[in-house]
């Protein structure tokens, strides 16, 4: 059966903005839904662990308010994935509170479904024991003990939780952690569009005009699915999609550009075609999807300890000329004083990272230039300890050792420079991602909880 055509808008990244005029143009084209991804793990583990999301309340509210009003005006669903960056339950509730407040402000009435994606470590432990958790290379070692060390784990949802919410009449879906593409594939798959095209279109759409040129801040992208191809176009006048710009997005933030792995589906994107449909839109075809064993990717974080940091600079030419030996010469002072203050073995429980900017601060061991040149150096030192009290003691000892480290040229004179009166900065508890695995589930909805309500 020919499913006809279906079109949708993708705004890029909720909280980073888009043109209001672009959204209006998109609505005028006649659309079936609006999708907005809000997630990323690029900022590290803190957001999932419990830290704040990337953007401000005002930034999220501006975007969500415009989208919600647009979706109500057009009478089409609004699907939001990975609420407040990490998709943890708190983020879903945060966006839900915001949606209720926006509804009150603008007198909007709609059905809202929240989808929660946090799971209990014990479920993972059970699946590990059953051999139903599979590493996604490269993956860290993972076992029951590590799963139980996680302070939070989310399962990354595919299309099915969105589809269930829509079947139950949701006008607004606020999803926890979701694949970027599932937001845009849920409705087309339910309506019978080709799975290969649908997933590929979702991949191209996920960042809004990330697939257009010139590359500037993200804006609204219009996607039209047809029987044998899909067409993408940006809605801002100064942007255009070219076969090159859209193809380039197939490479975006994926390790393998030819194989798109999603819950329940793998899409082969080797034989794809990108053709100009106009001077600013592109027609895409050729992807082929096949169903696979249903798995959900896991994202989990565990505590790595408590961190403090300080920064300093050196301009003394005799230090700069011997920066490596100068830094290593401080280490025995640190070891002696830490033993005096904290006891035997305490320093060994800490991680001390000394980054010398100007030498290899950015690249670390992967810096190809081994020779240090320049007339000054910037040092960023951080200390990670098992508890806050140890971190405070160790970091202050290490800071003092650097402050009074001897200059090789001046018989111990001078001290280092630092820019703020508060020299040591508290970062607090820090975390690490500890899993990169896919877990088999008995049902695509198994690990997700849906809560629906009438707003106003």
């Amino acid at each position, binding site marked *: 059966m020919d499913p006809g055509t279906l079109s949708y808008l993708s705004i890029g990244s909720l909280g980073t903005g888009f043109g209001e005029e672009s959204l209006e143009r998109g609505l005028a084209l006649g659309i079936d839904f609006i999708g907005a991804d809000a997630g990323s793990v*690029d900022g*590290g583990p803190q957001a999932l662990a419990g830290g704040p999301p990337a953007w401000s309340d005002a930034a999220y509210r501006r975007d969500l308010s415009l989208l919600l009003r647009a979706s109500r005006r057009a009478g089409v669903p609004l699907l939001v994935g990975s609420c407040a960056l990490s998709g943890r339950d708190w983020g879903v509730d945060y966006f839900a509170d915001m949606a209720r407040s926006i509804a009150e402000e603008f007198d909007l009435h709609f059905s809202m479904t929240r989808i929660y994606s946090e799971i209990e470590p014990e479920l993972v432990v059970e699946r590990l024991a059953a051999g139903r958790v599979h590493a996604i290379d490269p993956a860290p070692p993972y076992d029951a003990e590590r799963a139980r060390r996680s302070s939070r784990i989310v399962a990354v949802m595919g299309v099915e939780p969105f589809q269930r919410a829509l079947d139950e009449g949701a006008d607004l879906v606020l999803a926890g952690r979701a694949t970027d593409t599932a937001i845009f594939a849920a409705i087309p798959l339910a309506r019978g569009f080709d799975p290969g095209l649908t997933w590929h279109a979702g991949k191209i759409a996920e960042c809004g005009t990330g697939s257009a040129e010139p590359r500037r801040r993200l804006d609204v992208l219009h996607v039209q699915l047809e029987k044998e191809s899909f067409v993408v176009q940006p809605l801002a006048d100064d942007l255009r999609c070219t076969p090159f710009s859209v193809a380039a997005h*197939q*490479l975006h933030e994926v*390790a393998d550009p030819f194989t798109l792995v999603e819950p329940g589906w793998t899409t082969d994107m080797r034989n794809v075609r990108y053709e100009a449909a106009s001077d600013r839109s592109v027609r895409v075809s050729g992807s082929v999807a096949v169903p696979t064993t249903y798995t959900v990717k896991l994202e989990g974080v565990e505590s790595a300890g408590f961190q403090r940091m300080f920064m300093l600079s050196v301009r003394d030419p005799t230090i700069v000329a011997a920066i490596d030996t100068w830094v290593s010469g401080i280490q025995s002072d640190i070891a002696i004083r830490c033993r005096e203050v904290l006891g035997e073995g305490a320093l060994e429980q800490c991680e001390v990272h000394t980054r010398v900017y100007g030498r290899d601060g950015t690249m670390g061991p992967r810096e*190809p230039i081994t020779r240090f040149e320049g007339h000054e150096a910037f040092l960023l030192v951080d200390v*990670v300890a098992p508890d806050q009290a140890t971190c405070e003691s160790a970091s202050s000892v290490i800071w003092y050792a650097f402050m009074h480290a001897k200059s090789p040229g001046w018989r111990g004179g001078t001290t280092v420079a630092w820019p703020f009166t508060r020299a040591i900065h508290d970062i607090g508890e820090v975390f690490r*991602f500890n899993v990169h695995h896919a877990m088999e589930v008995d049902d695509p909805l198994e690990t997700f909880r849906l809560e629906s309500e009438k707003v106003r």
Partner: protein
Amino acid sequence: MSADPPTRTLQDALASVRSKNAGPFTVTFDLFFSDRETFLDVIEQQVLTKEVVGALYGLEPDRVRIFEFEPALAIKVSVPRLVPGGSPGDSDVAGGQQFVPLLDIPLR
């Protein structure tokens, strides 16, 4: 170090580079060439290999993935990160600067 550095490197052939995490455990580099001739020339020279990239990043060759992607005149290189993005000890949380060692790969 050679007294006569090669006159042409990969940097000279590139129109654009994008360097970014692909999840917290991988960093990926998209190397775009300005025209088909340059793209095909770099492939034909076989200078961007798993062995070359592995040596630059301190990795066994089988930990390196390389894809030629003709529709965007690009070569993608994906390597494991040194530490997961944002873990203690990381110096480039989103992986935006880790492409640099590739630039100096010599071309004929």
